[in-house]
């Protein structure tokens, strides 16, 4: 599973980093950034889906299943 993150949409709710700290990192003002290439580690697909669904700004999308 591959995620795409749109930094222009992020408003700093931070739910992505709660669900999926292995892929999302917040800066000190709470804004998120996607770590690495967005490939979800094996076994964390459910957490990734929650991160996508829980983002109030819809800043995260699933772009592939590779």
């Amino acid at each position, binding site marked *: 599973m591959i995620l*795409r*993150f*749109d*930094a*222009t*949409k*992020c*408003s*700093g709710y931070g739910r992505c980093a709660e669900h999926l700290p292995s892929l999302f990192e917040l*800066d000190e*003002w*709470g*804004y998120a*950034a996607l770590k690495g290439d967005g490939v979800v580690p094996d076994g964390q697909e459910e957490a990734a889906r929650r991160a996508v669904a829980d983002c109030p700004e819809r800043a995260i999308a699933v*772009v592939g299943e590779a």
Partner: protein
Amino acid sequence: MASEGLTNRRRLLLTDDAGRVDAESWRPQPLSAHRREFPAAGACGLIEEIDRAGLRGRGGAAFPTATKWRSVAGAGRPGVVVANGEEGEPLSFKDRYLLLRRPHLVLDGLLLAREALGAARAIVYVSSAAGRAAVERALDERADADVEVVCVEPAYVAGEETAVVAAIEGDRPVPRAKPPRPDQAGVDGLPTLVQNVETLAHVAWIRRHGAEAFRAAGTPEEPGTFLVTVGRAGGAPFLHEAEAGLTLAEVLAPTGIDPRDVRAVLAGGYFGGLLTEDAVHGPLSDRSLRALGSGLGCAAFTVLGHDDCPVEAAAAVLRYFARASSGQCGSCVRGTAAMADAVERLRDGEADDDDVANLRRWSAGLRGRGACALLDGAATAAASLLTNFAEVVDDHRAGTCARCARARSAAGAVVAPDAATTRERKERR
């Protein structure tokens, strides 16, 4: 003003007027004169020729041109080709020169790209009325030119490739998140080549003279020539055509700027940070400048003399970036403002330990957190100040320097903005 010191150098794009930049006096080279120099030639085998030439993008990122073209061509459907003449980088004038003085060279490159890639639309993207007029005048002169011109308000981010796509689609010219890159899905979802106008001018030159002749200039890793804007902080910029391996001191020689009176060099417009005086004598190449944590970028270099202060310059650059942020990415809005605030406190002799520690952390940790590279440019400015001018930073912890104190009471910054940035600053106030 002629540049005697460089006249024996290979000159591929500049005609007769390397020297002090005077946009008002530039007149477009007419098609008749251009055709004598550049006879028409088709695009057959052009991508392979560009590959052999080793041409890299001249807009700042130095991406291999043939690779980008193959990506657009490989999409298997007619796309869009764009000549990007939105020169957002402060203190760079080369793209304006090409649009105003050699529009036919840019159009040749654009039309070759359209033919080579089988594109459905060709667009020249500019951000000045003068550039638009020069291009439209040139288009009136030629029959082969079914080319659109899109003109936007000048802004630092307006030339970023996704902002170019947004503007052509009728949206605000601000960056979008990547992926997809424009070569994958650009204007209206079509594969889109967004190519700097200087790169396209080199394409036209390569079509006329061949890859071998292009490689006669420069180094094997960085072949060909590139346009360079050099100037003294607050002074008039000069335009030159240089090749990798020359030193900045050699490029400065004809300008009257004394290479001994250099305290710092602002590299790549504002994007490459502040380099020490050593940069004057090192080779002017992307490779050597990257080794210094900078890069060739758009090849604009501004010299700060011994009367100038690197802290004051960094403060001006960071405040510029904070104002130029399109306001979309939170990390950029907060990060650029925080770095500008901290360096301004340093400039004013009011910084504490936290300010310097924060700057160090932000300059490393904020990199890559924006949709475009503006935040990275600000991070580079802060990091280069801390790394290359550590003693100067320490001195400012003990109290402000004489130069900064003068600057504080006077209006304006050490780095004089061009007309476009002045306009932008006014708009944002």
